[in-house]
């Protein structure tokens, strides 16, 4: 089936009005998920990411080049229309004139986007590495070129004709060998939505565990919160519109959001005291809401004082933030609180907890910077 191209619309795609609402929602969900997947994958190298960009579904800015990605999805597991969707993606990718270093990608949720299966699952592969698929891709590209040719011949409007010729030229220049392909597997419409985003969650978890160095009881909580926050960043109001105004997000914005989330770490109260706590004290501390207490936000002066005292201390073998807090909390209590608390037990715990959180955050930031993420 030939594809009619309307050069006036921003997206050369199948008329969205033909789809039902759930398909549109699914498609947009996949697009955002694909963006997040690529963001995490390229987090060390990228600077910015755009979803629903001016030209493409996803645009990753690496500074010296840009990766343009087209995202296509199918709601129910099948191979239906996979070649049609590939051709649509090619057509969209042909809208732009690429610089030499720029890359193009086709990302979908097909297990076999062209023919072969298993090469693209949650990885990025160059098409030239998969011979059979490369052959098919070249054939499909030729089909699109032929359709364009026909349209050009039939087009009477001079302006539109020129645009079509430009698209054809770009398409001819689009190298199938260099085309990157990826599949997010699984990504299907099932009742348990957390399963749909399982791949993403796994990648975020790996980022937190390996690159930031956090692997504790609350890691899954951080993973979910990070996913939700990043998802919202790309898809702000949660509604699906056929044409969404594009949003450029700096990598640092998203990384700092992750750091804020993981800074809300659980503090092991037993490690803050030399003696075990009695039930009464434990209950008292448990019932106090420290997080919404005014004064719980770290100021630069407090942070720098705590960190500067901690650095020489931390050179002592085995000295953890908890040990530092246990030993030196009194150095900071007036500065932190100015005598706000009346209850000494709560005050002591608050100060120690605050110190540990500041130090843990400092360590996380260090890991992120040293790991090349920021």
């Amino acid at each position, binding site marked *: 089936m030939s594809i009619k191209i309307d050069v006036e619309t921003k997206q050369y795609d199948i008329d969205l009005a033909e789809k039902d609402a759930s398909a549109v929602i699914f498609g947009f969900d996949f697009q955002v998920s694909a963006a997040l997947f690529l963001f995490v994958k390229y987090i060390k190298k990228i600077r910015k990411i755009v979803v629903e960009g001016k030209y493409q579904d996803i645009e990753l800015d690496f500074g010296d080049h840009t990766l343009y990605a087209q995202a296509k999805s199918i709601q129910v597991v099948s191979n239906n229309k996979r070649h049609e969707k590939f051709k649509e993606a090619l057509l969209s990718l042909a809208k732009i004139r690429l610089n030499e270093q720029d890359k193009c990608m086709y990302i979908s949720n097909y297990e076999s986007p062209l023919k072969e299966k298993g090469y693209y699952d949650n990885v990025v592969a160059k098409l030239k590495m998969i011979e059979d698929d490369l052959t098919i891709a070249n054939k499909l590209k030729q089909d699109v070129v032929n359709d364009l040719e026909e349209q050009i011949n039939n087009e009477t409007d001079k302006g539109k004709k020129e645009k079509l010729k430009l698209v054809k030229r770009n398409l001819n220049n689009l190298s199938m060998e260099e085309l990157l392909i990826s599949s997010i597997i699984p990504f299907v419409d099932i009742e348990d939505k957390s399963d749909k985003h399982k791949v993403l969650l796994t990648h975020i978890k790996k980022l937190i565990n390996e690159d930031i160095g956090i692997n504790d009881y609350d890691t899954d909580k951080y993973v979910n919160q990070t996913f939700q*926050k990043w998802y*919202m960043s790309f898809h702000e109001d949660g509604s699906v519109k056929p044409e969404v105004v594009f949003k450029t997000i700096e990598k*640092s*914005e998203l990384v*700092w*959001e992750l*750091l*804020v*989330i993981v*800074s809300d770490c659980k503090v092991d109260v037993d490690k803050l005291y030399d003696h075990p706590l009695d039930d009464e004290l434990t209950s008292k501390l448990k019932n106090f809401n420290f997080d*919404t207490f*005014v004064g719980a*936000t*770290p*100021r*630069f002066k407090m*942070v*720098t004082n705590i*960190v*500067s005292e901690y650095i020489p201390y931390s050179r002592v073998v085995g000295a953890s933030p908890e040990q530092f807090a246990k030993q030196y909390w009194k150095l900071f209590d007036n500065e932190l609180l100015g005598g706000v608390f009346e209850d000494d037990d709560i005050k002591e715990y608050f100060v120690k907890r605050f110190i540990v959180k500041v130090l843990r*955050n*400092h360590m996380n*930031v260090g890991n992120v910077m040293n790991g090349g993420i920021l």
Partner: protein
Amino acid sequence: MIIKSVSFTENNTKSFDTLDSHLNLITSNSVNSVGKSTLSRLIFYGLGYPIPPTEDINFKKIYCETIINQNNTDYSVVRDGTKLTIEKIDKSFKKEYLLPDEHNSFLMFLFNVDKENIARNLLGLMYIDQEKGWTLLNRGKVIGSIRFSIDELVASLNNVDCDDLFYRRDVYENEKDKYNALLSIDTIKEEYYNETGNLSLLSDYEYLKREIASLQISINDKKKEIKEVEEIIANDEKLFQFFVDMNVHINVNGESIKINKNNIECSYNLDYLKARKTILESDLYLLKKQISNLREDYQKATNVPDLFSNNKTVDNEMKINKALSLVDIDVEQISTAKDDAKKAISEINLSIRERTKQNNPYIKKIYDYLYEYANRLGIGNYISKNTDYIFTNNLKGKTGANFQKLIIAFKVAVIKVLEEELNIYAPLLIDSPKSKELDDTNTELVMNFIKDELKDHQIIVASIHNQDKLFIQFDKIIEIKEFAIEERQH
């Protein structure tokens, strides 16, 4: 006391009726709703009582003049709003009373009694309202907020001071009435939801309110956090800007390095705070969205349905029921409070009883009359042999003709004792004696009994029936054509 005439003026319409010293009938000759009850109520309104009006008439706008005879002296009693004036016909005496505060003083003067509690309880003996009157035996509401209490009366007769206990009991009675009213509202709620088929809405509505309140607290907390973060960001940014503005340099191994935000240790804290603010703002956005959705649901749950829009009566009824249904009532708590009030009333009544009973000959006097009259009216076996029976609370199962007869017997018994002991000849006005279940036989029995026992008292009967159906000959018949206040042929 004998009421000789009553005159009522409303706007430009005036009615004037004379009354006989003994048997009077206010009738409409089988026509309903022409003002018999209104006229009956006006008679006592004219004597200063806070009688609630019937429909479509505002008593406060009516000018009343009553001519009474007390101890062979004629008086004019005029009521104009809250002003009550009593004047001897020969003008040799005049006194004004401000209502309602001085009404009891007026009654004490009128009936020549020196005890407040006796004067206060006379209406309960003089007036049987067509609805309320046939449920009142020895204590309760006479009409409106006017109460009768046999305890007060008997205690007062014997000069026993129980005012403190009466006051406390009144307080609990009022509380109990309020609780009953609240529980009625709850019944209306249930009926409303049953009618609309929206039983689940009742619990939904409560749930929504709680959720909205909880979310609002979360929103307020979130706003406070954001505000704190913003203040810190502003302060820290000023600090870094200060270093830049001051063009501060540091010497590191002979090299001069200019201080800026990027080379200050821990300056990352600013980025951290900005990211934190973004996250808090996202959280706040979500909370506001949630509360907005809940408020929409709440609006739907509390919206007045527009049923039968052409039928105003149904609309208004639905609206009233809907409004009542939104009243938050903790049924369990109200029921417990009501039970507590009832218990308190019981205990106070016991205390009153104990104080009153001590050496009180009036209890037996009243009981003796009651027993005699009950037997004459064929209900002797309905009352206990114990003289304390005059204080009975046990009215369960007492309905119908026998209860009506008991009420009559009781009132007449007390009237007789007051007559004998204090020379009080209080009139008796009965509104609609046949409205409940009194058949012709019993009507004849009751009417003749009243006529005979209260031969020296003025009796006024208001009834749609003529005297034939009431089986006694009346000395005076007032026939109402259309309204209580109208020019009548005499």
